[in-house]
């Protein structure tokens, strides 16, 4: 139990402009369950990609010792040969193939060059028994639940004679019952000698299964806590996770908060495919004129899902609840209704949901409110150019002209185009989802200044962010979400990273 199986030393991985990992150390002992904790974007998944060979050996610095031998993986298949198997949060199963076919995909059992179906199904059945799944191996994967699919993934890993199993947020997509079963299985496999690394920020799960916890923050190892030394406590984990460096500056502001503009009551949303899963449960919140309200939550807490379901039902099914604007109930069931009622939502994923990257700046800015520029269905292009130019100046969009293609702009300038688009639609309420994601520090300050200015103009602003210092820096009030529930509402005067993290990791009563 006390011999190390994996040692990662001095791992440093840089992406253009960002150091994702800096000198990270990870020690995993044979036969233990080792949890990795950290906020969104701390570098957990990057570290696992380094370990499993997704990022080839030459693309990072540092050494990996597996069973005391150095590793130089260039692809996932290299690491799998050594018995390291990673299961991603998004399952990599082919829905139309059978369970048995999926288990042996890429690793088919053959006889004389032809697939040996008898053996395939027989071996699959044995593996399914090991993970405690009583399904016929010939069942197509699409016909079993997500929880069972996760078990098929583990069976697939076992078929490769796994020594080290890496699970990236394995319970993120599961309901409580399936989660419990999965955690039991991890403990069961531990009894059979399989070492596991589990990425999770659900503290109850970690307390249940983990023998050790390594905390990562801003791409650095903070510390490794060990169960046998009595170090795994909620206090200790939270203290390690928060306390990001306050590297950004925030503009001064003098909030002038007026009457309530938007109120959401008893908002519930179910997952679009898995209708048994509640993604948001009875959430209620409000935002006032001139106020910046934060929405804090860890991955999977349901922040984006809450916002998008309010904004024209663009996420989820069985959405229920009421939206009030200035005290009157409004209908926001389509995007154009939401826009008509003065709501704007700037997405966290501007490349896929925010911008038409093959079009120029002016056409992106006018996209959500083209009617304002048109008479009788015909667009006044001169007016459009004038409008776009005024935003280019006021938002300081760095581009040769408003005819520049948005796909060629930097992340910060793209974000300014997205914000311009929504400002031109003249909303009363702006929901900004991760407004500074993927943006360098200088541009971040500009975005904060814009947010501050919007509030000063009397807009109601909701900011969704994974960066607690950012929320503390610009918000007047912060709501916390955990597993789809609003777990707290904290005025800025009472808010700190620790108090917020406590609420963000709070479990349901």
């Amino acid at each position, binding site marked *: 139990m006390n011999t190390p199986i994996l040692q990662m030393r001095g791992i440093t991985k840089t992406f253009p402009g960002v150091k994702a990992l800096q000198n990270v150390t990870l020690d995993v002992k044979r036969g233990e369950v080792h949890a990795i904790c950290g906020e969104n*974007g701390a570098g957990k998944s990057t570290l696992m990609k380094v370990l499993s060979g997704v990022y080839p050996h030459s693309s990072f610095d540092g050494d990996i010792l597996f069973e005391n031998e150095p590793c130089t993986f260039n692809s996932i298949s290299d690491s799998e040969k050594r018995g390291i198997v990673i299961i991603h949060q*998004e399952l990599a199963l082919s829905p139309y193939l059978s369970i048995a076919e999926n288990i042996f995909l890429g690793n088919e059992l053959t006889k004389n060059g032809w697939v040996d179906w008898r053996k395939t199904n027989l071996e699959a059945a044995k593996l399914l028994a090991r993970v405690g799944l009583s399904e016929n191996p010939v069942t197509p994967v699409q016909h079993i639940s997500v929880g069972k699919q996760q078990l098929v993934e583990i069976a697939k890993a076992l078929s490769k004679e796994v020594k080290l199993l890496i699970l990236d947020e394995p319970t993120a997509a599961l309901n409580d019952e399936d989660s419990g079963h999965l955690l039991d299985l991890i403990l069961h496999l531990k009894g059979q000698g399989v070492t596991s690394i589990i990425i999770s920020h659900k503290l109850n799960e970690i307390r249940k299964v983990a023998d050790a916890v390594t905390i990562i923050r801003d791409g650095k190892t903070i510390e490794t806590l060990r169960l046998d030394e009595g170090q795994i406590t909620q206090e200790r984990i939270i203290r390690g996770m928060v306390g990001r460096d306050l590297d950004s500056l925030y503009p001064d502001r003098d909030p002038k908060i007026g009457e309530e503009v938007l109120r959401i009551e008893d908002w519930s949303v179910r997952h679009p495919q898995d209708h048994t899963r509640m993604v948001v449960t009875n959430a209620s919140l409000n935002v006032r004129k001139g106020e910046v309200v934060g929405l804090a939550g860890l991955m999977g807490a349901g922040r984006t899902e809450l916002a998008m379901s309010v904004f024209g039902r663009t996420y989820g099914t069985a959405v229920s609840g009421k939206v009030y604007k200035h005290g009157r109930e409004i209908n926001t069931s389509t995007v154009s209704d939401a826009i008509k009622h003065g709501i704007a939502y700037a997405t966290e994923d501007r490349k896929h949901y925010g911008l*038409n990257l093959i*079009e120029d700046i002016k056409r992106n800015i006018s996209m959500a409110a083209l*009617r304002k520029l048109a008479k009788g269905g015909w667009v006044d292009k001169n007016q459009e150019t004038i409008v776009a130019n005024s935003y280019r100046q006021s938002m300081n969009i760095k581009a040769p002209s408003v005819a520049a293609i948005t796909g060629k702009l930097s992340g910060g300038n793209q974000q300014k185009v997205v914000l311009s688009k929504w400002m031109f639609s003249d909303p009363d309420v702006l929901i900004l989802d991760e407004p500074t994601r993927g943006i360098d520090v200088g541009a971040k300050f500009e975005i904060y200044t814009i947010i501050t200015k919007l509030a000063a103009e009397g807009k109601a602003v909701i900011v969704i962010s994974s960066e607690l210092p950012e929320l503390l820096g610009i918000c007047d009030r912060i709501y916390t979400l955990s597993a789809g529930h609003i777990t707290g509402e904290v005025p800025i005067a009472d808010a700190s990273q620790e108090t917020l993290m406590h609420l963000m990791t709070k479990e349901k009563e």
Partner: protein
Amino acid sequence: MSALRESLGFLASRLRQVGIFVALILIVLLFQVLTDGILLQPQNVTNLVVQNSYILILAIGMVMVIIAGHIDLSVGSIAGFIGAVSGVMIVHWGWAWWIAIPACLLVGALVGAWQGYWIAYVGIPAFIVTLAGMLIFRGLTLITLKNQQITPFPDELRALGGGFLPDISGGTSVLEWLTVILGVGGTAAILFQAIKERRVRRKFNLENEPMAWFAVKTAFIALLMLIITFLLASYRGTPIVLIVLAALVIIYSALMNNSIFGRHTYAIGGNLHAAELSGIKTKAVTFRLFVNMGVLAALAGLVFTARLNSAQPAGGTGFELDSIAAAFIGGAAVQGGIGTVAGAMIGGLIMGVLNNGMSILGLGTDYQQLIKGLVLLLAVGFDIFNKNRSGRGGGSALRTRFKLKTTPPAAAESAETAADRPVAVPASSRQESTVRNS
């Protein structure tokens, strides 16, 4: 010297648009030589226009559908079906042409609405719906015609296919003067419009087209217009269908560039999710695009029927492929969001000149199909090649080279790589951002 270099640099950045135009001219010159001058004889130029008019009409609707990210395989069958319907209405029922034509266009709109409903509101891919439509409307054509052609049509309808504007000089002049007036007037209008637009762009500091290039391009287009005018005027004048086509090109170009509907079409094709999240009613736009395609297919069917003076069971067969090829050769992007009506017209003319030139040379349809297929493959292959070289956004390989030569290496590199570089997010958070799709 610098003006020349500037022009060349600009030319390189518009390689696709300029290239297709140059390709058309080269193909025309090639066949002019190969056919010993027959290609550009006045009568043949008139033939070229009339022969290709229905493909060009279809290509207008097709490029719009393609810009929105869809496809329509059924237009040939719809054109055939409307031809059959017009035969029944006009020849069997004796309807007047001015009732029958609007009625046929209405039937086309209904056909388009039928397909648009399945595509936009039910969500079946356009490829499947229109493949089904290709069979359905061919079947309905055969049923309507009872497998026999309907003929003859009255002269008023036939004028739509083979008629000319009246000769105001009464046939005494060498040149047909109405055509000259229209041609010169049209050329003047184009010059006026081009200069006006350039002035507006300069006013807003959007102009990146060098003066020299603008002058050469505009003068060249004007010259081309005048040559075509001269050729048409020295035969029988202006085909009526050319007037129809010119009107359609002007109206639809304006629609795609300046109307809310056109701009929403580009937005949908460029990024469907972003369009939806910007409040664009994507289903309604898609539905209307197919209704429009139905109307244009009906018009093409009428022109074709009028030209042949008969509604035939196999009428319109293969039109869909020619019009799709026209749109793609004319620069439309397979994944949507990019394309122009004018480009589709040039693409259609390239196909038309190839058809016509090879027919004059006496090449069989076997070789014609082979060569047309290769041209389509090369044109789209050229696009993909360009895109792979310079990333999404439609730059060109040549421009990359120009920039690397004329700017310091470091600056050039940062300018070029900035677009393709992944956003500087740690990979973990990028992955986390996609969780709601899981």
